[in-house]
């Protein structure tokens, strides 16, 4: 990789050992992925829950945090993805003290590095959305795909170590979606039925993700017949990134880089083309729900809920009572508004639990299942459905209304 004088100085340790490690890490990654140089970034977003870090990762962060203050701090705004717990509600989830201890240590280390503990995967709705063509270094696949596609920003998937590196150096290797040529569509999906509910958007994302197949594919959707809202695109993108490891999509006439068909139906190239209709989306749901009649827990999470989603949950629960655990997970930015507007009170009066700053699958999901006897789970998040099977759950993908209905009928799924 071609390095500037400043980057050579970083590599030589002139900015301290943390930045030196960071740029060496970035060069390894950049050379593997054929980056020619670095690109400056304005923000970094770190996924660093302790279920992923483990004790070894926390100790690694703590060693960096023990450096002198002027040798360890990030040089651009650096924020965090959800943590592995909500300390105020950990006992209700039957999380163990060792999990909380590990979380506290990780938080202390990240704070010592100058990281802002925002603990959210919906920073594009709540903190500071990136703007068109802004280069950033974001973790959390849902954050990256929304920022790239809906905002028109430029980021690759930056795992925790690389996002932290970007925070420490203020740059990232220039490969993938920092390059114009990588942002063109590689397949076209004709959508014959525009989704209505959030779980339908997630199902469409899952289907397109499976069609796309890998990180380097960029699907362009045609046929969406109305302007989707932020929560709809959030669920679509999160599922597309989860099922396909996809980091960028276009919707013709809607997302900012494809105002016209010609913007993506490229320059005479023959792109592979697929069709997706209502029956495909129905079949996607059936592939999960058909074998499950009852569930043990209902979870709204992944991504964290916006204020509008929480308001809808509260409205659906008014006058009802959840008879199985019902978890509603949001960000530390949304939770105070939910409290102030008494949405939390309404949900919890109906038997639900509102959690802040965590995400269900990043919070020791296997241990929570064992401690609480949870095996079958209902959610309206296709992303959660895709992930949670690996933790031993049997998930059902339902609408928000059907999830609430199941929660209030001892877990029985209405057919």
């Amino acid at each position: 990789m071609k390095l500037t004088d400043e980057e050579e100085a970083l590599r030589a340790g002139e900015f301290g050992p943390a930045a030196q490690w960071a740029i060496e890490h970035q060069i390894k990654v950049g050379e593997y992925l054929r980056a020619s140089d670095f690109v400056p970034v304005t923000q970094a977003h770190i996924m660093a829950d302790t279920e992923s870090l483990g004790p070894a990762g926390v100790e690694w962060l703590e060693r960096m945090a023990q450096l002198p203050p002027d040798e360890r701090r990030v040089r651009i705004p650096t924020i965090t993805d959800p943590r592995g717990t909500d300390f105020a509600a950990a006992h209700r989830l039957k999380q163990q003290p060792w999990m909380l201890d590990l979380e506290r240590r990780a938080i202390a280390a990240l704070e010592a590095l100058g990281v802002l503990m925002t603990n959210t995967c919906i920073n594009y709705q709540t903190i500071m959305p990136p703007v068109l063509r802004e280069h950033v270094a974001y973790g959390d696949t849902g954050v990256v795909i929304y920022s790239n596609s809906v905002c028109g920003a430029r980021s690759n998937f930056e795992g925790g170590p690389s996002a932290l590196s970007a925070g420490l150096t203020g740059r990232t290797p220039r490969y993938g979606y920092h390059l114009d040529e990588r942002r063109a569509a590689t397949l076209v999906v004709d959508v014959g039925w525009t989704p209505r509910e959030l779980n339908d958007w997630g199902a469409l994302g899952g289907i397109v993700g499976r069609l796309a197949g890998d990180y380097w594919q960029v699907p362009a959707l045609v046929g969406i017949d109305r302007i989707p809202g932020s929560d709809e695109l959030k669920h679509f993108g999160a599922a597309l990134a989860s099922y396909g490891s996809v980091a960028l999509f276009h919707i013709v006439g809607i997302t900012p880089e494809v105002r016209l068909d010609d913007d993506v139906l490229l320059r005479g190239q023959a792109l592979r083309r697929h069709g997706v209709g209502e029956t495909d989306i129905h079949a996607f749901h059936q592939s999960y729900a058909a074998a499950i009649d009852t569930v043990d827990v209902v979870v709204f999470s992944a991504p964290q809920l916006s204020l509008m989603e929480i308001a809808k949950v509260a409205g659906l629960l008014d006058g009802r009572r959840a008879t199985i655990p019902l978890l509603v997970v949001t960000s530390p930015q949304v939770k105070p508004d939910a409290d102030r507007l008494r949405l939390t009170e309404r949900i919890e009066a109906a038997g639900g639990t509102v959690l802040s700053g965590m995400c269900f699958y990043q919070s020791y999901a296997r241990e929570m299942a064992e401690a609480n006897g949870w095996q079958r789970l209902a959610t309206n998040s296709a992303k959660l459905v895709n992930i949670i099977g690996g933790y031993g759950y049997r998930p059902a993908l339902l609408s928000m209304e059907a999830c609430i209905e199941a929660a209030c009928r001892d877990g029985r799924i209405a057919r």
Partner: protein
Amino acid sequence: MSSRIIADAGMGRRVEGEALVAKDGFSARYDLDRARGVFSRSEHKLAGQSYVGRVLVLDAAKGGVATAWMLHEMNARGVVPAALVLNVVNPIMVQGAALAGFTMISGFALDITHAIPNGAWVEVDPTGERPFIRVVGSNA
């Protein structure tokens, strides 16, 4: 002993091990029970099989960003594959392998999951200018 199958890129050290092969994806968070060292997602073609000490030969990197930390965590406990060989990587696998000092090669002129027999004893060498994998014997 078979001829070398050249990869587009590689990192880590030379290793040998028994190949565990499937035309399926890989994500440490989505697919593994990392405590037990087995593939745990029931839909995965390697569900129930141990990955510890094996050379995983799979199709494409899948899933989220967690693998960037998890390879390091798995390595620290020694409950880890010997190497990862993929048709298609994503940045997360590269970042995770870089942090963990893990052996990985990727990108081939053919489908590597068809070229390497499951159970074969293979050599993976990312150290030269042309990273490669080759079958050096049968463990079947």
